[in-house]
């Protein structure tokens, strides 16, 4: 479909994550086909593409939630600490604070340090006032910030975000994007899906463009938005319907 050698122009940096001819099949349907790509150690990558292109799937394979049917997911420098933030945050049926101390507990942080660290993270994400509230009655924006705070505590080397702002209002979107910038400043490798072109322009250092389960383009953000090489990507950037 697409000339793969042409689709890649990001290879100079040392590799953090390598996908080698990864395919994923479910009930006889090929949902992701023969995806090979390399992610560098730093920066913000946006995975884009129309609905059903395989964006979330690609991220779940990279994060290890799913195993590829064929091909390999490799971390050349070893498995990094990683976290994932989902479109609809899955929060435990406990207080906001307890959600954070739980994360510290399963990461073997000594009990004596947990509360202070959790309060710090709540403070950082503007959630100090709701620390005692049950996590699941918080607003959508607060819930997503809590999910980010939870990831923050792990201090991940790689953070995956699956459409983290899809269900949020503009103020909450701003808060999430600020948080992503914080992670980036702390040196976390960001990998995120989005179907929002404006958001992608604001955030992306590089773009992975998927269409129908295939990797169509993997290029620097400037290149992708100004001079995408594939017809699908050009149409997508112009806001036309692609499938």
């Amino acid at each position: 479909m697409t000339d793969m050698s042409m689709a890649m122009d990001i290879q100079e940096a040392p590799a953090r994550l390598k996908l080698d001819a990864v395919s994923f099949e479910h009930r006889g349907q090929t949902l992701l086909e023969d995806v090979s790509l390399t992610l560098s150690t730093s920066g913000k990558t946006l995975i884009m593409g129309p609905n059903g292109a395989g964006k979330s799937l690609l991220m779940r394979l990279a994060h290890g939630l799913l195993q590829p049917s064929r091909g390999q997911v490799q971390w050349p420098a070893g498995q990094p600490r990683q976290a994932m933030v989902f479109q609809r945050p899955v929060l435990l049926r406990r207080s906001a604070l307890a959600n954070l101390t739980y994360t510290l507990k399963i990461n073997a942080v000594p009990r004596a340090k947990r509360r202070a660290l959790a309060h710090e993270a709540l403070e950082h994400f503007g959630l100090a006032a709701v620390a005692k509230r049950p996590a699941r009655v918080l607003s959508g924006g607060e819930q997503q910030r809590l999910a980010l705070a939870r990831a923050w505590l792990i201090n991940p080397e790689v953070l995956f975000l699956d459409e983290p702002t899809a269900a949020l209002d503009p103020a909450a979107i701003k808060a999430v994007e600020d948080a992503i910038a914080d992670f980036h400043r702390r040196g976390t490798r960001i990998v995120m899906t989005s179907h929002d072109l404006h958001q992608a322009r604001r955030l992306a250092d590089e773009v992975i463009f998927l269409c129908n389960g295939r990797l169509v383009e993997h290029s620097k953000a400037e290149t992708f938005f100004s001079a995408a090489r594939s017809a699908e990507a050009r149409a997508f950037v112009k806001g036309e319907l692609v499938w």
Partner: protein
Amino acid sequence: MSTGGITASDPHSDSALYTALALVMDMDPALVDIVALSLRVSLSAVLTAALIGLPLGAALALWRLPGRGVVIVALNALMGLPPVVAGLGVYLLLSRAGPLGELGLLFTPSAMIIAQVVLVLPIIAALARQLVEELWGEYQEQLYSFGLSRVRAIPTLLWDARFGLITVVLAGFGRASAEVGAVLIVGGNIDGVTRVMTTAIALETSKGNLPLALGLGIVLLSLVALVNGAAYVIGEAARRRLG
């Protein structure tokens, strides 16, 4: 111990109900002993069944082992196990000629506890399986993303399903405290040794000693009402607090 003091009142009097209330209010020693033994037997049985049934239910929810379907159907069917049949089974096990006859447990409170565990365990395991499976559907990706194995996920799932599970355990207590068939067969309804509320009610009614039967009936009914009230309050509180 004797119930002589109670039978002194005229069993055929219209004031049986008042006599019964008086017995309850005066904390009649015969009545108190029977209530205490009932509580001891049923609480022990429910505690034991919960300790086995909750992890068993969670394991059935999380692992797709061969034979899982058979176990689930069996548990669901056993929820309706007639108490007399459970009693008969335990009786055969514990009788002198039975495989566990050596233990000499027949006609002791221990035998009654065993019989009630057999009755309550399927309820707790089957309902816990349902609750945990629902929760697992929601939490699975997030807990895997945290790097938790299924074994390590069990305490989290049981804790987060806690309000539903308390109701399940209370339902188990309701079944244990209300049944008469099993404890009658394996306990023998021996005065002062294995006589509990339900067997005492059956006996006193057939003897025509209605005040004691009614008094015990009032206590038993109050207990069941209390348990159901508690289940309701806990369920409502959970809905309000956890959303």
